[in-house]
């Protein structure tokens, strides 16, 4: 009989298709793993309601577990509690920065108008002299910044609380 710990270690090998440097465990979208009615159940939560990567993640999980000999796996989705970047692992934050994506910083309330944009250190040269280019970036979870010191344009993994 396979253990829960083994399943978790296999899920570490499944990556986020949009940010492939992160595993789905780093991303914090795996909310539960349990054995019920003779099959393993994996509960996921989406990062954003319309995240197009969720379906790919589900398929990758099924494929990965099938390779390990588990063919009756069920994937469930939960919406509450809603995903937050607080669930991003410490290891995940380090991997993001090394990959050139600035990890989430604590932010002011999103509803404030014209609040000064969050100071996001450049993932390449660490300068805090960076500027927000756009609140929306290449995927739902990112915003677009540029470093004024080294000129590097970079993605910022938005803080979501």
């Amino acid at each position, binding site marked *: 009989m396979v253990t829960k710990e083994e399943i978790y270690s296999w899920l570490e090998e499944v990556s986020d298709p949009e940010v492939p440097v992160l595993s789905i465990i780093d991303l914090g979208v795996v909310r539960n793993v349990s054995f019920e009615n003779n099959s393993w159940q994996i509960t996921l939560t989406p990062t954003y309601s319309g995240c197009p990567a969720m379906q790919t993640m589900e398929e990758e999980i099924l494929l990965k577990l099938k390779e390990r000999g588990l063919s009756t796996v069920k994937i469930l989705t939960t919406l509450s509690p809603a995903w937050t970047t607080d669930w991003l692992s410490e290891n995940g934050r380090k991997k993001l920065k090394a990959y050139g994506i600035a990890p989430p910083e604590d932010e002011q309330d999103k509803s404030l108008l014209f609040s000064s944009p969050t100071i996001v250190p450049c993932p390449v040269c660490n300068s805090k002299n960076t500027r927000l280019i756009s609140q929306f970036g290449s995927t*739902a979870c990112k915003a677009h910044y540029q470093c004024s010191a080294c000129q590097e344009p970079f993605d910022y993994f938005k803080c979501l609380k």
Partner: protein
Amino acid sequence: MTKNEALFNYTLRLGDDSLILGQRLAEWCGHGPILEEDIAITNISLDLIGQATNLLNYAALIENKDRNADNIAFLRLEKEYCNILLVEQLNGDFGDTMMRQFLFDAFRKPLFEMLQFSKDKQLAAIAEKSLKETKYHLKHSSEWIIRLGDGTEESHQRVQNSLTNLWRYTDELFFTDESDTLLGELGIIPDFSKIKEVWSANVTAVFEQATLQIPANNWQFEGGRKGRHSEHMGYLLAELQYMQRAYPNMEW
């Protein structure tokens, strides 16, 4: 009317508003005034279509007639869609799109803030999830309304025209019928008058900063909630439904 019928109606209405506005915004893909706004508008569209998927799947579950979000989204006739008229209005210029978005976001934020405490667990969960996205949308649309309204003479005049044209669709945001009354009594949905209070205060504050005037002529349209749509709806549905109508049951 049973509780389930009322819950189905309510969930379908929220789902249709998200779906149709998501479809409208997707029309901007590749046509945004600048690359950043092209990406912003399509990101917002994606969030709305994600919310629509959650809502329409839940409506299908309540209905229990072997349908899912896809069948509901793609295989109904125009009269069966119950979105408000505001969301099906044409994109117009960037100011028209931002004005429509602002009026809508300013409604959705207090709605989700209150709905997340619904006695219906799934509606509460969808609201909790959607609220985080909606706050971000509202910040984006409010900032544009202020920038355009308090901008140049040209931008002010154009976005004032957008407000004058779109204001007459705002009463329908607060449309209620017996479904809403029943669900309100059961503590499943918030009181629309409370949402309206927050909405009014928010839009008034932003318009003040944007130096925009709410039009004095307050003639209001309605009909979308009852399936009576404007002339724009048929064209939108033709595009939305094309693949499923031409190739029934096709999948990616």
